[in-house]
């Protein structure tokens, strides 16, 4: 019993430390972060755009005082851009400089075999750590204090790239043919995010904890708005969150997510609103909704929604 109460206490501690970094986490998110640290597994975060998947990685980094290394995925990303690359220019430059020396080095070799031997020793120099340009993945493994590695929008990358990640995700190491295997000094905390644009491979999913972040509960969302937009009046906050939650029940192309709620709250505060007004909502709806069709679908409902969330503001 003692160990389990301490576990729920430490999950609360995770929640608190994330909150101190400005990220209000649900119980589930906190559990995921706690487990990821304990059993050293990457977290694969899925969910609609703008619910704070990327923010989670930033918050973890901030709360632990670690560096965050971010790798944005896109189509055509390959190991030269993700893992490491040889510094070709530097290698060329050095060969040019050493060209003159070459005569001296090979001068005392009387047979061809000897010359070749000497040349071999020489050649290895060019494929050493000196000439490796580390890209995000390799850099993450080489951080002496550990770090938070964010692999953002993994669903945008090609299926081949996933296979490249497998070694890093399961063993926290990469193999460079010329140098050997590089093992992480301190295993980084890895967060992968995906918008579900394509289905990820089973091999990748198997290696991760799978966390789905949906739209937050109204209470949680209010707390998020409170931390992110400190100057907002309590009444407005309640009405605004109530309104957004009603908009989410509509059948829209892109539902407003947390980031849109925050943006909208900022705009309303800038405009000096203290309560959600009918006209003001109509004027600023374009902050919340990103498609013309969505705005048109929502406009007729605005007065009803405002009235309803107004009642919530008074009685709720």
């Amino acid at each position, binding site marked *: 019993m003692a160990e*389990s109460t301490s576990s729920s206490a430490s999950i609360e501690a995770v929640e608190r430390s994330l909150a101190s970094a400005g990220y209000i986490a649900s119980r589930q998110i906190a559990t995921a972060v706690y*487990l990821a640290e304990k*059993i050293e*597994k990457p977290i694969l975060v899925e969910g609609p755009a703008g619910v704070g998947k990327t923010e989670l990685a930033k918050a973890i980094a901030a709360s632990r005082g670690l560096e965050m290394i971010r790798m944005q995925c896109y189509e055509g990303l390959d190991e030269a851009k993700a893992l490491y690359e040889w510094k070709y220019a530097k290698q060329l430059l050095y060969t040019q400089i050493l060209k003159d020396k070459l005569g001296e080095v090979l001068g005392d070799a009387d047979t061809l075999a000897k010359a070749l031997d000497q040349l071999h020793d020489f050649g290895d120099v060019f494929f050493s750590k000196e000439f490796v340009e580390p890209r995000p993945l390799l850099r993450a493994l080489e951080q002496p204090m550990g770090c938070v590695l964010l692999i953002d929008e993994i669903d945008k990358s090609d299926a081949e790239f996933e296979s490249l990640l497998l070694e890093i995700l399961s063993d926290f190491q990469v193999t460079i043919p010329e140098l050997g295997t590089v093992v992480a000094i301190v295993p980084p905390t890895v967060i992968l995010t995906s918008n579900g644009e394509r289905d990820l491979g089973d091999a990748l999913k198997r290696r991760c904890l799978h966390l789905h972040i949906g739209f937050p509960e109204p209470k949680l969302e209010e707390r998020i708005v409170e931390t992110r937009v400190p100057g907002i009046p309590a009444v407005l906050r309640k009405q605004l969150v109530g309104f957004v939650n009603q908009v989410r029940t509509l059948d829209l192309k892109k539902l407003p997510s947390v980031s849109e709620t925050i943006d909208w709250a900022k705009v309303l505060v800038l405009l000096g609103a203290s309560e959600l007004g009918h006209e003001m909502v109509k004027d600023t709806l374009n902050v919340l909704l990103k498609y013309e069709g969505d705005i048109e679908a929502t406009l007729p409902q605005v007065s009803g929604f405002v009235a309803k969330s107004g009642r919530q503001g008074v009685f709720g």
Partner: protein
Amino acid sequence: MRDTLHRFFRAARGAGVRISPAESIDAMRAVAEVGPSDRGILRDALLLTLAKSGDDKAALGACFDTFFTHPDFEQSPAANDDVEDADGGASESIETAEGAASGQAAAELGALAQMLLAQDRAAIAAALSNASNAAGLTDIRVFTQRGLFASRVLEQLGIAQLRDDIDALNARNSADAERLTAALGSLRETVSEMVAQALLLYGSEEKEALRNEILRNAPMARLEQRQIEQMRALIRNIARRLRERFSKPRKRQRRGHLDVRRTIRRNAAWGGVPFMTAWKRRHRDKPKIVAICDVSGSVAQVSDFFLLLIHSLHEVVSDVRSFAFSGNLIEVSEVLEKNKPEEAMKQIMSSVGYGSSDYGRSFVDFEKGFMSAITPQTTVIVLGDARSNNLDPRADILRRIGERSKRLVWLNPEGRMAWGFGDSEMPRYATFCNVVRQCATAQQLERAVADIVATYQ
């Protein structure tokens, strides 16, 4: 705890969540980390480690909730009241000596009877779970086994002893006997509930597999109404399988001949010295399909499933145009793209469906309106029973369709034995088709479509 988790994994697999050994190890580690005391956290931890998609999460969540709610052993309130009344009556009328005697008598009873009399909930729950383990309740597969497993569990609980006890008590202490009989009734109920739950948890996987197997080989034209929904789900599964198989073209470079033009162009930077060779690649088209479906009464159901399958192959098939006919022919591609399958079929049926089929006239319609849809890369699939009600079959148009297209495939829901008998024009049409095959079941449909797509690979 470990046993419980193992049983949970089996139940989860039954619920259709794929759990690999590695994932179950992760789950074990996670549970060891968070401990079992807080159910909410335990649920979160299991969902995090085991479920890898939204569907999985929902299924696993439901499974978790069923798994960790045991049917409690509860005596019905009415029985309880009776018991108390009887007790009260007994203790009032009869002196304490009698009470001592009944206590002595109780000592002679079996363990189960004592538990029931004492209403020791915890002990009964423990006995129930031991008995269900001993009876191998997790092996239950189909619903007909319910009676068998229930009686096995009861046997393990020691029901024979209990019956003897009741018989013995009937003579001496009828109040206790009544109490025990009532308790036995509710015990039976609890056990049968437990067995039903176990069936729900562990039986679903086999059940699903068995049902799908039967459905795959059932004639599509004669399904019952309730099976149609299941069939749609099955067709969607087939579509997913075909997509996975064919959507990603395997790379086939460096095969064949040197591409001289591209090699020279690529090596222009090195003064024409061919450092980098370029090879001719086999050009690969995605299938272009023209589907012509009979939707007259006899074949309509099969056409429905066929169109559903063809139109859910977006990743595999680049271009599908569908036509439906019975008396006359219309294009239905747009209706199918824009609407849900059920509504689309309703619309199609209301405009051309359920008439008596006239193949000749429908082919004339096709030649007049849509012949240009057929290119040398197109596979034309005709789905129908070729029963033209003794009207002119116009096989000459089918010949021209066959000549214009890459392949002409005829799928016939009727068995080969029936071809050519009655008003069937199948033998006449068959001469102009590249492939003619029977297509009555989902399995045959899958094979037919897979073969068509495979010719493009």
